[in-house]
């Protein structure tokens, strides 16, 4: 089982998290074409190599965050919280 480095809690078993999936930006719901919206819903790159993906620490701090992960080696390169943490931390 791979370790996922939660930016709040540190490295934990992947079973503590929900894998959200490849990070993908939400198109503007008022101007998106059907092609753009369905690409957002269903299309993923699924690369062999580095990918940026979102995880949710459901059995821990309840934070969404992004990591860069090599899908071949499961090496993790960079970790950042979703913007919420920073904003709320400052307020």
């Amino acid at each position, binding site marked *: *089982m*791979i*370790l*996922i*480095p939660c*930016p709040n809690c*540190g*490295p934990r*078993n992947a079973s503590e998290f*929900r894998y*959200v999936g490849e990070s993908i930006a*939400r198109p503007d*719901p*008022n101007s*998106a074409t*059907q092609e753009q*919206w369905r690409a*957002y*819903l269903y299309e993923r790159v699924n690369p062999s190599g580095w990918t940026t993906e*979102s995880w*949710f620490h*459901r059995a821990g701090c*309840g*934070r*969404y965050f992004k990591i860069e992960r090599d899908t071949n080696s*499961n*090496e*993790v390169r960079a*970790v950042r919280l*979703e*913007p*919420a*943490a*920073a*904003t*709320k931390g400052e*307020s």
Partner: protein
Amino acid sequence: MRLSLRPGEVIDRSRPLRFTWNGHDYPAFLGDTISSALAASGERVMSRSFKYSRPRGVLTADSLDPGCIVQVGDEPNVRASHRRVEDGMIASPQNVWPSLRFDVKVANRAVSRFLSAGFYYKTFMKPQRLWPAYEAVLKRFASGGVISNRPAAGYFDKRYAHPDVVVAGGGPAGMSAAVAAAEAGAQVMLVESEHELGGHLRWGGAHELSVLAELKAAVSATNSIEVLIDSVVAGRYDGNFLAILQRSLPGVTERLIKARAKTLIVAPGLIERPYVFAGNDLPGVMLSGAARRLINLWAVKPGTRAVVFTANSSGDAAAQDLEGAGVEVCCVEDARRGGDVVRASGSATLQSVECGDGRTYQCDLLVTATGWTAPTSLLNMAGDKPTYDERAARFFPCSLPEDVLATGGITGDGSLEQILEHAAHTGRLAAGRARVAGGRLRKGVPHAAPTDSPVAEEQSNAITALPVDAHVALFRGRTHGFVDFSEDVSSKELEAAVAEGYSSIELAKRYTTATMGSAQGKLEVVNAVAVVAAATESTITETGTTVWRPPYAPITLGALAGRTLEPVRYSPMQSWHEARGATPLVAGAWIRPDHYGNPTAEVRNVRSNVGLIDVTPLGKFDLRGPDAAKLLSQLYVNKWAKLAVGSVRYGVMCAEDGVVLDDGVTGRLSDDNYLMTATSSGADTLLEWAESWLQTEHPEWRVHITPVTSDFASINVAGPKSRTLLERLVENVDLSAEAFPYMRVRRGRVAGVEDCLMWRIGFTGELSFELHVPSSYGLHVWESLMEQGADLGIAPFGIEAQRILRLEKGHLIVGQDTDGLTRAYSAELDWAIKLDKEDFSGKPELSWQAERSDWPKLVGLRPEDVTVVPPEASQIVHDGAIAGRITSSRMSPTLGRPICLGLVAPHLAEPGTELSIVLPAGVRARAVVTEHLAHFDPEGQRLRG
């Protein structure tokens, strides 16, 4: 025959035991394995082989022993050369129909010397209609013991561990590595598959035994080593996550340890390889390690007259041990000087051996020492592809990740002292790397950065590799014999498989099932590769080896299941429900009353008097902050900005694909405080869903969402007399229809309890008040309601009655009347969807759905036959095609006829349309689409009253 005292023996002669084998009584000593005790009593045949029913005996005298798999009591497939005898144990052979001594399956051999490769595929494939007959035949022939129908006895445990260093293998190298790693500051777990530490030192001579004593003393003097005996590292996964199976624990049948090791040292030693020649499976033919273990560990004389076929020091030592044990060694056939054995013969057990030069010896024991197999499984699981060394005739580790190291026989030869030194270096290196890895983990980085381990690198260079000795390459001799003893696969069958085109080792393996038996390739894989290599005229390197996958050793289902750790949730009123004999319903994590005996009567009582239902599992969320309405507006298809304080609203939630995700009622308690409810089963998902909007899309919104499901006990009071009842218990709130109308929320005192929320909603279709009271007062309020309602005919009702009541009223249940493709317009929720909002989850898909009309619709259905309730999920057909399905159906106690909801094709959704429903057994029932989803009180007079 039992020998006189041996210096390294593991039996306790002062502790005699009795056990039963095959219906007869046998003696043993404490420390005996089942097979050593049987061998001491002169038994040589331990089982019949899998396909050909050939007699089989001791081959390896360890846990791999393929011919020593037996039944012990209720437990099948026990390894008799590993399992120790217990007093009174009842053991019996497996796969011996009708008996161990006389076996009718021997007829197999009369028909053909060897069943052909792929025999089962070819013989039992066609025709399909005969499969039941084939199955009966195969069942009788298949090996394996008898599985008990009773639940597994004993306690299975699970444990999580975070050691610095795990050492897989408790032989001299593993012990030395463990001590060195511990002395370098590491917390060490030393895992040994046998019942004692020591590996091959245990059956060695005086020097080996004295080194063993020193090593054991060092291990037990080191506090930071945890020794696990009768345990095995069964799998290595990403990030050095190890599955360790632990046995021989007091009070625990088996324990699965999930260990996150910072470094893993693989020190399994070497496995002795059988030699392939005619008769190599006869009882009396055994490996040098087996002979030495029988003599030195259990003081068993393995035969009376022996031929020793040796290519290495283990064979030489076995010859010495045999002579020391009083066995007449009539011939030492030395492979290093061109010696060979060609054939072993005998009926049932060994009687003679023919050597390479044609001489034949009468004997009852043939000991072979023809080489070693490196058990590289854990290395393979770490990504290594071991390489074959022709000079040494075995595989070696090639390239290992930083967190996996290897030492001992798997990495090379050399003297015992050289091996101990190599292992100690490896242990220190592992401790150093564990320290670096631990530092990374503390910094929150689980993976190696390329430049952060200078200390470890330095030590790594200091280790001198072990020398590698040349070894004669001996796999198959001049005759054909068994390659796989557990699957009964001969070298001839492997050659036949290659001739039929299965020339890759992976194909030949699957076609013949070689390496797929109980030893899982540990004994036989290199021989199989060598036979296929020879048959394809290629080298062992070119042929390659089969892939080793977890588990390295067998794991019982009990160990994998472990103990059950499933949290169960109850409402504060559970004791009351149990005392009233409520039939429980498992709903996700919650246990709640399904009914109290008669759901139909419960429905009637709600419609005519007043009923109480415990709805505590309802998901509840406290929303606070000035932007709470923005969050609600994002989550739900409805509008929220104008919801007044003191009002509640039913909301529908869709995912981004427009599919209905959840529904529930939300009330505005004050300017910036809302209480949101969700379906019981959707509560966890909803929280994550709401958080994802807050954390990823709208971090600027100032709102907190807090799950408060268990903070409240929730009670729905429903029925025409519910107001009368509550007026007796509620203080400081005017409950009149004018002051507290439908879809409003009030806060007040109920049965003396402050701060209870009441909202007027009507899932059941009746006048009803839903109470959310502080959970510690839940039982008190419930009992007060029951007491005060006695003269009103109050009765509790359960989930089943609620389902009927809501179906009469045509209220949908998300996930029952909708599925993973049902978008909101299909669920007749048009009225709730506000496409003019700036944004909400699923808006684009719903706006596209609104432009079309080709989607299925939820409709009410009235079956014509008033006595037949079409089962839920029945197909609806029209013009010979499937046109929908029944999503909910019940007999309505109120209307005295069946009522249904169904999803149907759009052109069939018009009220009055006649549809055909397929009932079980193919009978058709007619039903008519109703005007409303509600079958009862569609105008909602009752709930607004």
